[in-house]
């Protein structure tokens, strides 16, 4: 059996450490032993390519999940899912979740004193097309306080979950908005060592993507681990 062609390693400075004390929840949850490096076997280069379920027509449009329109600023979020070899990742499941325009999640664990929106649940999913493109329609999430430290606020963000083609390409990340003064104060975003890599989590406003009289448009590409061109010797 020929050994599988491995995916490229995690880029230096891009992946946050497991332990990052300014984000206090890492302190009791980060392993203290180093990760054990293993070769990529068939178990690592395969993965659940097609996700879990058939998608409904409006799964990607979070403004259509209830009878009425949600409150807030309607936005279009679109982009491509790529490998860091530059190849698009087609037919991969993209899942998102977010709070409403007031900064409140529809979740029993969210006790923030901001109103729920009866017309907004905050979850969506879509498959990328043959060129790796995805598109969501939603409302711009609000900022909200959390108890990480004195006067801590999360910048507005949308959570993204992606699979890619393999077990080692799995990625959960967050998308932030340009110009947000809370970004530099956010220990979750700042846990990423390389400032240039941090910027890759900020979407770009694109007037060309806005739909006149209807919604603002943001572009956001997401780059997963891609493949080495040549097989590695063991």
């Amino acid at each position: 059996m020929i050994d599988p062609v491995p995916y490229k390693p995690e880029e230096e400075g891009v992946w946050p450490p497991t332990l990052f004390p300014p984000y206090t929840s890492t302190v009791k949850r980060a392993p203290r032993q180093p990760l054990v490096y293993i070769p990529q076997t068939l178990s690592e280069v395969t993965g659940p390519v097609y996700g879990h379920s058939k998608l409904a027509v409006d799964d990607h449009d979070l403004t259509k999940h209830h009878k009425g329109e949600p409150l807030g600023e309607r936005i279009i979020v679109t982009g491509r899912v790529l490998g860091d070899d530059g190849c698009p990742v087609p037919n991969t499941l993209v899942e998102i979740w977010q709070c409403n325009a007031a900064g409140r999640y529809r979740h029993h664990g969210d006790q923030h004193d901001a109103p729920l929106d009866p017309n907004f649940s905050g979850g969506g999913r879509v498959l990328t097309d043959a060129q790796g493109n995805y598109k969501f329609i939603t409302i711009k999430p609000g900022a909200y306080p959390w108890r990480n430290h004195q006067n801590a606020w999360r910048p507005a963000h949308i959570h993204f979950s992606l699979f890619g083609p393999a077990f080692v390409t799995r990625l959960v990340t967050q998308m932030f908005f340009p110009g947000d003064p809370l970004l530099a104060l956010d220990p979750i975003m700042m846990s990423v060592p390389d400032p240039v890599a941090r910027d890759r989590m900020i979407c770009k406003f694109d007037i060309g993507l806005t739909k006149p009289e209807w919604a603002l448009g943001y572009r956001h590409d997401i780059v997963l681990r891609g493949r080495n061109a040549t097989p590695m010797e063991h």
Partner: protein
Amino acid sequence: MSKQTPSQTVGPFFHLDLPFEGGDVLVTANTKGERILLEGRVVDGDGEPLNDALIEIWQANAEGRYDHPEDAQEKQIDPEFHGWGRCPTSQDGVYRFQTVRPGPVPGPGNTLQAPHINVIVFARGMLRHLTTRVYFEGEALNADDPILARVTDTKRRETLIAKKQNGGSAVYRFDIVLQGANETVFFAA
């Protein structure tokens, strides 16, 4: 060339989207192989259970074949088994999957990997997900598994072995200890 997008925590509110009905059941009535229940508790460095973790598993079928285009083995795909599951932990930090015991799959070179289930752990407080593997107590192939061999500390290697529980059907227990004395071995590839 494109550059990688960083990982960020799944946070405490992923229940809005990620868990789904039946995510913890990988089998149908017609799936081939030995039915097993894989269960365990996820705990932090104080031994406190995590009620906000999300566990995903990925595994080969009973013959040892992944339902994926890159698995070129001559073994058969089981149309009644994909091999992927997702389960949020309960208030007590417990996850549970109904699946089958996977068959062995090829390893590096001409080695054979013992039956194992690939595991991803997501949670608030984890800026990047952790990966580990479930092996099975009493499996003869464990002795020659090339990945288990990478864990030279035999006490730590034990954290990767699911323990068979007493009872009628095959129940395997695999606790995930994020930190501390019995810390689970986590991998990077």
